[in-house]
């Protein structure tokens, strides 16, 4: 578990432990890479890229006893999430409507693809025109500001290289509360579709997600996770745009998780202690210099 999340969100750790997991803060003393990093920077708060490196090292050095299970980015993970969109297709049918726009938050791309890809299938195969809108944090804007290039999936350069919109494998994110959205890259299929114009994306600031999250909680009764609050921001912006234009737009968004483990973040928001983080352009540019040199066979 990324150290900053391990510290910010102890109840998530305890939940995992309840289900039988051993949970370690990354960077940890348990891998060569983690030890080397801690020697260099003992106060490192970690990143998803570093945690992936440690997990990959643990699997690769286990003599086949351990495997690496990841929560996003790769095709099979996205595919498993399509159960969400397959259900939503049937449910929209029950409602007698079809979405004009599907909205989801994105970090690695799995929950967004899970709801959006089944609707994309109807765009591609049956000429439907549903817009697919991915919403990411301004603090980790891989799709909207990252470079579409081959890059490592992890910081230690042990994981496979894929072509994706990337902020660079050395990316260390600002400590925004949407921990699930702090990855440097993005699912390759989603990036290719975004690059070709089949998917839209926008980046929103942290404070701009807590305000609609609170409005959603007060109207609908559900307290959303900071990640899902990005989708709510996107859905509300669509609804306000529809209001301005006077159209009965049908908006479908994925509420990917509740925020019961994120109450400290809500408390900080109410106390006026949260801030926005704009990812600096200099860092976007610097990441380019560190991309792997890839020569593809003709």
């Amino acid at each position, binding site marked *: 578990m990324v150290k900053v999340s391990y510290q910010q969100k102890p109840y998530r750790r305890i939940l995992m432990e309840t289900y039988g997991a051993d949970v370690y803060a990354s960077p940890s003393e348990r891998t060569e890479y983690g030890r080397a990093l801690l020697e260099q920077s003992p106060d490192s708060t970690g990143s998803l890229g570093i945690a992936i490196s440690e997990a*990959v090292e643990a*699997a*690769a050095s286990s003599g086949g006893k351990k*495997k*690496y299970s990841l929560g996003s980015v*790769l*095709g*099979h993970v*996205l*595919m498993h999430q*399509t*159960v*969400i969109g397959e*259900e939503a297709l*049937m*449910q929209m049918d*029950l*409602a007698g409507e079809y*979405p004009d726009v599907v909205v989801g938050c994105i970090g690695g791309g799995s929950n967004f693809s899970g709801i959006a*890809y*089944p609707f*994309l*299938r109807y765009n*591609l*195969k049956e000429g439907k025109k549903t817009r697919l809108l991915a919403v990411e944090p301004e603090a980790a804007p891989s799709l909207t500001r990252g470079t579409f290039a*081959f890059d*490592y999936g992890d910081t230690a*350069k042990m994981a*496979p*290289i*894929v072509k994706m919109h990337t902020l660079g494998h050395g990316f260390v994110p600002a400590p925004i509360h949407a921990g699930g959205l702090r990855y440097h890259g993005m699912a*390759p*299929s989603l990036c*290719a*579709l975004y*690059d*070709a114009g089949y998917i839209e994306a926008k980046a929103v600031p942290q404070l701009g997600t807590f305000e609609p999250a609170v*409005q*959603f909680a007060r*109207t*609908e009764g559900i307290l959303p996770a900071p990640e899902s609050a990005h989708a709510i921001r996107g*859905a*509300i912006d*669509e*609804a*306000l745009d*529809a*209001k301005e234009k*006077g*159209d*009965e*737009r*049908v*908006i*479908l*968004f994925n509420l990917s998780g509740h925020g019961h483990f994120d109450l400290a973040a809500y408390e900080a928001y109410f106390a006026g202690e949260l801030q926005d983080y704009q990812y600096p352009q200099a860092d976007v540019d610097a990441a380019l210099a560190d991309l*792997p*040199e*890839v*020569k593809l066979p003709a």
Partner: protein
Amino acid sequence: MSTQTRFTLTEKDLPKRWYNINADMPVPPNPVLHPGTMEPVTPDFLSVLFPMELIMQEISTDQFIDIPEEIRDVYKLFRPTPLLRARRLEQALGTPAHIY
């Protein structure tokens, strides 16, 4: 006008297949490269990290892949999840849009 808020499926509606975008990608896929050699990875390399079944799913171009019964049994503990129309949010925003 209907005022229904919850749209719920039953256990028998639980999807039996996942949708695989690989089958319908309108743009050609890019290779996945080995971090050391920069050459396209082989299933053998990936098998150090991932179970072979997941690797086969990763490279499959079948449009749908059956969800194993063991997984569907676990899904049944909490799926299908409900679809809700956010009518109270629509009202608060004063929007003619329908938010689900």
